[in-house]
């Protein structure tokens, strides 16, 4: 039964990936990417990785899709027709894919408890973490306690992403007038000016 679910999800994943590449409308491509994330999250659920599935559904399917839509509102939603022939990239992709599949043949069987990755620190976490911390969710214990320093780095990385985006987007760049003033009240004035300046309002940009 689990195999049937896995194969169905993987086929849908493949179909969605091909559709993302084929479709020329970027709005449709963004929506398909959201579906792809949701399918990945379902695959994580079948692997019992609930925490990862949760994150993938919230970040991949949710916030990432919204940020992509925000970008589309700025750059338009029609992709330009490709000028080059796809033969060489296709060849490179197929060769790389074949090498990766060949490499995967030497990997230990999926989910085998005797795999090296399950013999290192995982048994210690599984057996001793509750006695040491009294917290039942092992993922939280590993993230917060055993590897708290890593997680602090992750939080810093997330913060760095905001700093980088603000430096690039919110500070005007080369054309200061392209950035909307975010101070209270300023935005109403800006959009009112835009509405009076151009007959098509900002609503049509999102269409």
């Amino acid at each position: 039964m689990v195999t049937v679910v896995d194969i169905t999800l993987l086929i849908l994943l493949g179909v969605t990936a091909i559709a993302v590449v084929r479709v020329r409308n970027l709005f449709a491509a963004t929506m398909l990417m959201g579906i792809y994330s949701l399918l990945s999250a379902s695959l994580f659920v079948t692997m019992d990785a609930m925490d990862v599935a949760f994150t993938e559904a919230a970040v991949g399917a949710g916030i990432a899709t919204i940020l992509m839509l925000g970008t589309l509102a700025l750059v338009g939603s029609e992709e330009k027709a490709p000028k080059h022939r796809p033969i060489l990239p296709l060849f490179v992709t197929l060769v790389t894919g074949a090498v990766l599949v060949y490499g995967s043949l030497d990997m230990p069987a999926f989910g085998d408890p005797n795999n090296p990755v399950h013999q290192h620190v995982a048994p210690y976490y599984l057996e001793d973490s509750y006695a040491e911390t009294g917290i039942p969710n092992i993922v939280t214990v590993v993230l917060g306690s055993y590897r708290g320093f890593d997680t602090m780095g992750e939080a810093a990385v997330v913060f760095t992403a905001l700093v980088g985006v603000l430096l690039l987007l919110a500070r005007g760049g080369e054309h200061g007038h392209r950035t909307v003033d975010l101070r209270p009240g300023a935005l109403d004035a800006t959009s009112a000016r835009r509405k009076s300046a151009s007959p098509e309002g900002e609503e049509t940009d999102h269409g």
Partner: protein
Amino acid sequence: MDDRVIVRIGSKILTPFIMVFGLYVQFHGDYGPGGGFQAGVIFAAAFVLYGLVYGLANVLRVLPPGVPYLCGALGVMIFAGTGFVTMALGGSFLGYNALAHDPSHGQHYGILAIEWGVITTVFGVMVGLFYAFAGRRRS
């Protein structure tokens, strides 16, 4: 804007539930799937949904851009500050056992504190990113 009644009413009804669910994910991170990262995104989604439906100007009135930017920095400081508190109490950096007499209580408090830092950072960054992207207009 006015003709999308279902979207407006629906999002208005959903927003508080999204926020409560975000807090549920935050505080049950010790017992079930979830934690600060997921909870921060879910809590931010409530504001992003409000901004998408009612416009950026209205969500900026609820949550001025300074708040998420500050939250982004504050969360990292809460996380690192927990580490310094455990050091001041005689433990190692982020060694939560020093936070209480019973080591398992200390672990509990410590993880609660750093998860609070994580949700603050992730919430601030997600809303801040949304502001940065939605605040730009086509030239």
